[in-house]
């Protein structure tokens, strides 16, 4: 009994700590895009909590050894959310946080879309949608061949599922029983020109069903609930002989009131006033 109270307490502390980090990640994202005067805030903010849990709790990684063999890897298939990945990598210490303001600048390594050869901690170059799951499969297969046991995470956008290659790859994931692979689908239900469920009849329930039919262990969670994300990752790790797809219900632009659920914030930067307001909102302690 005492133990369970203790573990509950530790979990609450862990969740609170991760929530605080996620807030800093969101501030980093806004800062990057504000200074770059371009970028993709909506889809970056929607994966901030997932990335926080991955890099600060889940993944077996060492920022001092970004190329270590046998590390866990992440493929950010929706590469336009690069600002979120850089935000978390800088926060983790892969490179100085001061570099974030150089995002998208000609003298910067922080490219508009992630480049694995330019930024420490970026495990795969992405940008053209639909390719990440195949790559993650290749990484998971290599890990199996070498009997290393490292895990591979792949973040897909819901709009990205309109790319056919995702489903080619999904068949490969289940055929090779890649239980060291965990797919996270960011279901914010918005893409550049409108609602994902209207553009291609894809809502989070359809998505869950599709991945299940393709042989995945699936789970639908709130993608902004740290505790739920933690639980989903530990369940994924326990599942054997099947890849896992965690369908996360998210809010595009999450954390900045005027960006939330607004497709206009898919790919634009805040002006001075909006920047000030966004940082102010994110600075408020709960």
């Amino acid at each position, binding site marked *: 009994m005492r133990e369970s109270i203790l573990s509950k307490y530790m979990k609450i502390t862990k969740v609170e700590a991760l929530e605080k980090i996620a807030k800093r990640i969101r501030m980093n994202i806004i800062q990057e895009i504000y200074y770059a005067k371009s970028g993709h805030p909506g889809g970056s903010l929607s994966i901030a909590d997932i990335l926080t849990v991955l890099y600060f709790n889940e993944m077996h990684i060492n920022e001092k050894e970004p190329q270590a*063999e046998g590390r866990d*890897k992440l*493929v950010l298939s929706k590469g336009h959310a690069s600002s979120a990945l850089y935000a978390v990598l800088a926060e983790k210490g892969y490179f100085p946080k001061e570099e974030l303001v150089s995002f998208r600048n000609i003298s910067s390594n922080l490219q508009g879309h992630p*480049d*694995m*050869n330019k930024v420490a901690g970026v*495990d*795969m*170059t*992405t*940008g*053209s949608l639909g*390719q*990440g*799951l*195949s*790559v*993650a*499969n*290749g*990484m*998971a*297969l*290599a*890990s199996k*061949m*070498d009997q290393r046991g490292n895990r591979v995470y792949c973040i897909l956008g819901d709009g990205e599922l309109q790319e*056919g*290659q995702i489903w*080619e*790859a999904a*068949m*490969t994931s289940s055929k*090779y029983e890649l239980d060291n692979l965990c797919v996270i689908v960011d279901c914010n239900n918005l893409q550049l020109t409108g609602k994902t469920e209207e553009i291609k009849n894809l809502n989070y329930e359809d998505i869950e069903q599709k991945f299940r039919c393709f042989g995945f262990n699936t789970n639908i969670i709130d993608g902004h609930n740290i505790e739920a994300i933690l639980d989903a990752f530990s369940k994924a790790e326990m599942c054997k002989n099947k890849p896992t797809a965690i369908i996360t219900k998210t809010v595009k632009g999450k954390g900045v009131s005027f960006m939330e659920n607004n497709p206009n914030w898919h790919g634009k930067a805040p002006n001075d006033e909006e920047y000030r307001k966004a940082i102010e909102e994110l600075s408020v302690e709960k």
Partner: protein
Amino acid sequence: MDNEEKIATRESFGRALSELKENRIVVLDADLDSSTKTEYFKKLYPDRFIQNGIAEADMIGTAAGLAACGKIPFASTFSAFATGRCYDQIRTSIAYPKLNVKICGTHSGITVGEDGATHQMLEDISLMRSLPNMTVISPADDISTKALVNKIARYEGPVYLRLSRMNTPVIYKDDEKFEIGKGKQIGDGKDATIFSTGDVVAECIKAQELLKNENINIRVVDMYSIKPIDTELILKCASETKVLFSVEDHNIIGGLGTAIADILCEQCPKKLIKMGIPDCFGHSGRPSDLMKYFGIDANSIVEKIKEEIN
């Protein structure tokens, strides 16, 4: 050469691949391993063979992921699908990140024959050589294919290997050496140079023999390395011979002829007569009939050279 053993470069590729003693090699195929000849590797090393099914884009991506983890993937399918269908996957997931993937396209060119235009890839050299970081290798016979499969396995970086379905004569001796970035000069005639690549090099050599009987002495240069290309050899032949020709089983736009013209126009302006598929799609037929139709068989080459020289 007619009486000699003939073998398709896809066959040589499959055999060489299965003989590579390097356990980081992983072979991927898209339901064509009996045609691409990766089946030999599959039989020997089933644990290092990935069957992606009829999903070429997925195969290319999987290969990229394997390479990112230190494997040496050889991804194989028909060149039409390997390069055309997967251009963007190659561009974003292999060439840009400079991952160590060998893309092996068999059934290139019109010599595919009866399957017709959809399967006769005539733009692959053009597509692949315009990609930064990409090496493009196009061997002409059994010996060079085997040697170059070994070379590219040891080379670190993305490679496109262009192979053929049609059986072709063995040109080289067993101990002949081949280097990425070099070409191979055959003969030292000064009347003309034919630069060629892949399965039509043998036709050029036949043409060379036929022309000899008419006292026209030419040299053939096997440009098995299209990128990087042997600039020095091109310039040497341009200065030593009167007329320059290129012969290729590929669209005359963007292929070997274009690559040579790029060098000539900047460093040694000289007329180059490009022979190949004249910016059109192929069609069904026997490979020998198609080569004749498109003017890249030995007799057509002879006629064209005589016409230009006289």
